[in-house]
């Protein structure tokens, strides 16, 4: 299965997390979603993901943009 990538570099809080949540809604449990985001959105997106039981399973970086691999919880 290909992992889809969600780009939220143009969004601000709280749309950042809303979009991630919608993105995760479309995939099955334990599925993966890549999220491209700016530094400013990191804290809120990651902490909300953790609170909702998802995991950030990989982090990479390209020119100031972070790429998170999110694994959907339960």
């Amino acid at each position, binding site marked *: 299965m290909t992992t889809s990538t969600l780009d939220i570099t143009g969004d601000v809080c709280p749309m950042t997390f809303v979009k991630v949540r919608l993105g995760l809604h479309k995939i099955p449990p334990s599925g993966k979603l890549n999220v491209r985001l700016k*530094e400013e959105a*990191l*804290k809120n997106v*990651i902490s909300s993901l*953790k609170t909702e039981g998802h995991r950030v399973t990989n*982090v990479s*970086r390209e020119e100031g943009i*972070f790429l*998170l691999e999110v694994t959907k919880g339960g």
Partner: protein
Amino acid sequence: MSEAAFKELKKGGMMRQSEAGLFSVRLHVVGGRLATPQLRAIQEAADRFGRGEIHLTTRQGVEIPHVPQDALAALKEFLATSGVGVGVCGPTVRTVTACQGCRVCPSGVIDSPELAEAVDRELYGNPVPHKFKVGISGCVNNCMKAEENDVGIKGWIEPRWETPACTFCGVCQAVCPTKAIATSEDGRALIIDPTLCIGCGDCITSCPTGSMREEIRGYRIFAGGKFGRRPSLGKRILGVLRTKEEAMAAILAVLDFFRIHGKPGERFGDTLQRTGFPALETFIKVGVGRP
């Protein structure tokens, strides 16, 4: 009425108004919290003894203005039946201010009202060389402006980095608002600069692997702040304290230091300008064995 008699009234929270014969009565409020029966009593007192007006002060205080001098005693008695005391003025430990803290605010690290009550019980109205203000913020968002107080407290999270799971993803460094986290020269460790860290815990909340952990969730003390005519901000003293009891002991030690070194009419911040902050820290450490 003699000046001495006015002074005596002022000490007990009765403030002479510009309009002769009238007083604004300062009430005893702790951490900005009043129970509804107290509020009802205050409302009724303002209607009966004042002009149906209540003033909310900048430091979470409540005053009933426009009370005639001959009604002061009756007002005091009336309020006492509902558990509302009158305030203090002069060279004493004043109203302890506090935010709602962790029991109400999701950002809260400490129980601010609980500590405020403890400080108030122990110290409210105690004599000191000059007025002395204590303010308590439940976290680094600092709604109660800890640094504007003679002693300010902030809820504080001290992070600790753990090697095994860290992937050096850089998230903690990116989210740190003060850039307190550096990578060691060999690139195999993260180093947190305690002088830059503001105890927000953001690195812990954001770390995907759980490698940033809470070392201490506790109390940070700031000393020597004041506002008024010549404002200056308080400075952090001591390490992060773990318990309410430790915080209390440190506050008591600060007051002892002020009583020993402060001159009458000198704000604590000015005392510290003379003695230096290290003298205060040494005093507290020796006296109560605080870290």
